[in-house]
């Protein structure tokens, strides 16, 4: 069979078809290239934006609220992540069942829960800041529509210690009281915003050179408070308030050299971990919010002003009218009738009549100027919310009785902090300064970043005047003074007692059965390390400042001073018989950081060992090292000894033992 000729196919129709196909193919490719050009060049920004929107995201990681430390770096306020429970109404299949399973875990009524879960809203808070156990129990339910998210919860590890000073935060982490409120903007911190990629499931995708952000703290705060001193103050204050069944009490401790507040105790106590509305009456920091009449403690400032102005001399004597003194239509009384008293005795014995005469002699204007110089009638400027200015009426409106009464601390209102800062000015030689509660801003590791400094101080009295007043205040805590119970053994204290009547708001007169007991002072008198004010409101059973507040001052000082490295002198009469002297260190300094060379017994003083229950032989062996003479009666085992075990030994001690075989 003949094969057809290939050339016969290359006819016109063939070439037309080829040409057509070429045109179509080329046109198609031109279209494709053109479209590609349009998409990738002309619309490039649009598609770039869309791809970024799909693949990139900004992740917002909130920072922890800054921690609060005491002056020694102890943690006092701290935030931790805590799960909060919410529901998506769209995915809750069976609200009734979910509510009945959830109610016993979170401790809420079933009906209320069911109503919330039945809502169609996409986001419903169920309970915020669950405990760890609650969060685990909720997640184990695996109930559809219920989810947890992390929020930050504030904890105060020292519980009620400095509760009113620290304050607390709300559910959203905003400071509402105390330091938390005053330094809210500093502690709140800034959120971390970081760019990240997202995978197909829209989860964050972190690459090696772009690790995921870790929530951290921005800035923390180190306070001037000392947690231990705060604790001691609160404990002793509570004991005193409980003993006298008082209504309330405050203690403020300040370092007179730096004006740093070391403690601010309030009673009743307040635990900011439980800051519900039912505890609202406990929130306020009474040391700055509540003012009271300072009573006889104000005589210190009156006498200081009069000495500074030269209106009186320490050698002068004032006649105290044997206990009754008439000013206008009012009678001023002394607790005890006095005749002639020297100026130091006016402070020591706290004569109201003498104080009135000094005030009347000084004059309203000069006296009012000194009152303001000492910081009364104005806020101290401490950076805490709610500070009261106290009450000092304009001197132009003072009648003679007002001037006289102000001399012994009535008709004037002060806060515990104002009183303490004024005494601090006397303690440090006459310089008044602004109190500091915040010491430093610290970073997330607790390292200082910025220091707080108070405003400029001002000199209000001369140093020699302050020294004269110091001597007078020291006599108050010595034999015969009204504050003899205030000085701890081994220390010299300078202070002033006060017992002020309380105004009854209903009658507008002073109540006959309500008093404020006050003791304010500094210790040691010669080199003050602490200035402390103790205020007890409405005690029962005893009312005088020296009896109610003085012992609290002593108890706190006895614990605080050794803690600060200030030890009692060895010459004080109540030294332990077991007192032992050690060799001094090279430079003669002592304190917690010094190691003594050796310890020697100065004498053979010690205590009698307890030998009851021992046989005669063992008892004699035990007593032998003490070199004491021993006498015994009976046989068997020691049933009684005289002196008893623990009694301090004397060189002539004779130990008598009574033995009995039946023991």
């Amino acid at each position: 069979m003949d094969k057809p000729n290939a050339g016969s196919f290359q006819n016109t129709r063939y070439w037309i078809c080829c040409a057509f196909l070429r045109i179509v193919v080329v046109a198609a490719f031109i279209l494709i290239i053109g479209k590609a050009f349009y998409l990738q060049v002309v619309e490039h920004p649009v598609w770039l934006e869309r791809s970024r929107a799909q693949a990139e995201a900004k992740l917002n990681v909130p920072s922890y609220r800054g921690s609060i430390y005491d002056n020694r770096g102890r943690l006092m306020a701290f935030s931790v992540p805590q799960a909060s429970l919410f529901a998506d109404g769209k995915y809750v299949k069976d609200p009734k069942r979910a509510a009945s399973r959830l109610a016993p875990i979170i401790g809420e009524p079933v009906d209320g829960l069911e109503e919330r879960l039945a809502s169609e809203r996409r986001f419903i808070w169920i309970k915020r800041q669950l405990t760890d156990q609650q969060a685990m129990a909720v997640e184990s339910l695996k109930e559809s529509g219920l989810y947890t998210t992390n929020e930050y919860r504030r904890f105060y590890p020292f519980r009620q210690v400095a509760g009113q000073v620290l304050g607390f935060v709300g559910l959203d982490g905003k400071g509402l009281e105390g330091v938390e409120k005053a330094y809210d903007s500093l502690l709140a911190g800034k959120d971390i915003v970081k760019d990240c990629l997202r995978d197909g499931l829209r989860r964050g995708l972190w690459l090696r050179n772009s690790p995921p952000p870790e929530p951290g703290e921005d800035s923390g705060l180190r306070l001037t408070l000392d947690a231990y001193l705060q604790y001691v103050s609160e404990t002793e204050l509570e004991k005193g308030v409980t003993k006298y069944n008082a209504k309330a009490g405050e203690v403020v401790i300040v370092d007179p050299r730096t004006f740093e507040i070391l403690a601010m105790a309030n009673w009743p106590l307040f635990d900011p971990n439980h800051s519900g509305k039912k505890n609202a009456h406990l929130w306020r920091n009474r040391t700055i919010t509540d003012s009271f009449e300072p009573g006889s403690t104000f005589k210190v400032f009156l006498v200081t002003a009069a000495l500074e102005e030269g209106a009186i001399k320490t050698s002068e004597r004032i006649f105290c009218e044997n206990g009754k003194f008439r000013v206008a239509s009012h009678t001023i009384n002394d607790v005890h009738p006095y005749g002639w008293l020297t100026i130091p005795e006016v402070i020591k014995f706290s004569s109201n009549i003498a104080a009135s005469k000094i005030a009347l002699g000084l004059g309203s204007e000069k006296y009012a100027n000194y009152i303001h110089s000492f910081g009364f009638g104005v806020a101290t400027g401490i950076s805490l919310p709610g500070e009261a200015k106290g009450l000092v009426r304009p001197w132009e409106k003072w009648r003679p009785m007002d001037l006289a009464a102000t001399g012994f601390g009535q008709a004037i209102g002060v806060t515990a902090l104002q009183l303490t800062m004024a005494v601090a000015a006397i303690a440090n030689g006459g310089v008044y300064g602004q109190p500091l509660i915040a010491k430093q801003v610290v970073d997330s590791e607790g390292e200082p970043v910025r220091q707080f400094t108070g405003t400029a101080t001002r000199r209000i009295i001369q140093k020699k005047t302050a020294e004269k007043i110091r001597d007078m205040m020291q006599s108050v805590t010595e034999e015969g003074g009204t504050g003899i119970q205030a000085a701890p053994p081994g220390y010299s204290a300078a202070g002033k007692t006060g017992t002020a009547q309380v105004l009854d708001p209903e009658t507008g007169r002073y109540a006959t059965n309500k008093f404020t007991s006050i003791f304010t002072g500094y210790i040691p008198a010669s080199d003050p390390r602490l200035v402390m004010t103790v205020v007890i409101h409405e005690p029962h059973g005893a009312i005088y400042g020296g009896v109610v507040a003085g012992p609290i001052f002593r108890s706190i000082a006895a614990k605080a001073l050794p803690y600060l490295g200030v030890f009692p002198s060895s010459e004080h009469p109540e030294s332990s018989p077991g007192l032992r002297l050690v060799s001094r260190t090279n430079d003669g300094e002592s304190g917690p950081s010094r190691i003594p060379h050796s310890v020697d017994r100065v004498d053979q003083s010690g205590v009698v060992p307890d030998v009851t229950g021992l046989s005669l032989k063992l008892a004699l062996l035990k007593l032998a090292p003490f070199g004491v003479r021993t006498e015994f009666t009976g046989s068997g085992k020691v049933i009684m000894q005289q002196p008893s075990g623990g009694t301090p030994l004397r060189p002539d001690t004779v130990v008598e033992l009574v033995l009995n075989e039946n023991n």
Partner: protein
Amino acid sequence: MQEQTTKQSPTPDADHLQGSRRPRSMRSWLVYSGMLGVLFILFATLNVWLHIQYIQDGYRLAGLQSEHEQLLAVQRKLRLEWSQLSDPSYLEKLGREKFGLAAPRRDQKVLIR
């Protein structure tokens, strides 16, 4: 026609040679195609495997990151617990109730200078 037939008719040897060249080239193409196909399948398999690994690694990484975040949260809570254990009131209560300790009396204190 006969000339064309004559011209176009190759010799029997040439015909035989051309016939064996065509089957050989066909086989080569088949072999190359087969090899390409196998390579394609291998690469496709590798690609899928890599994709799966990537996804699984992504899950593992997300799991590790989640675990890391949880451990950081636990660390923070432990720090809080440690601070709570140094609360002075808690320490005093512990000393008093568990160890029977009490504050020393005045005569029990020895002053060392």
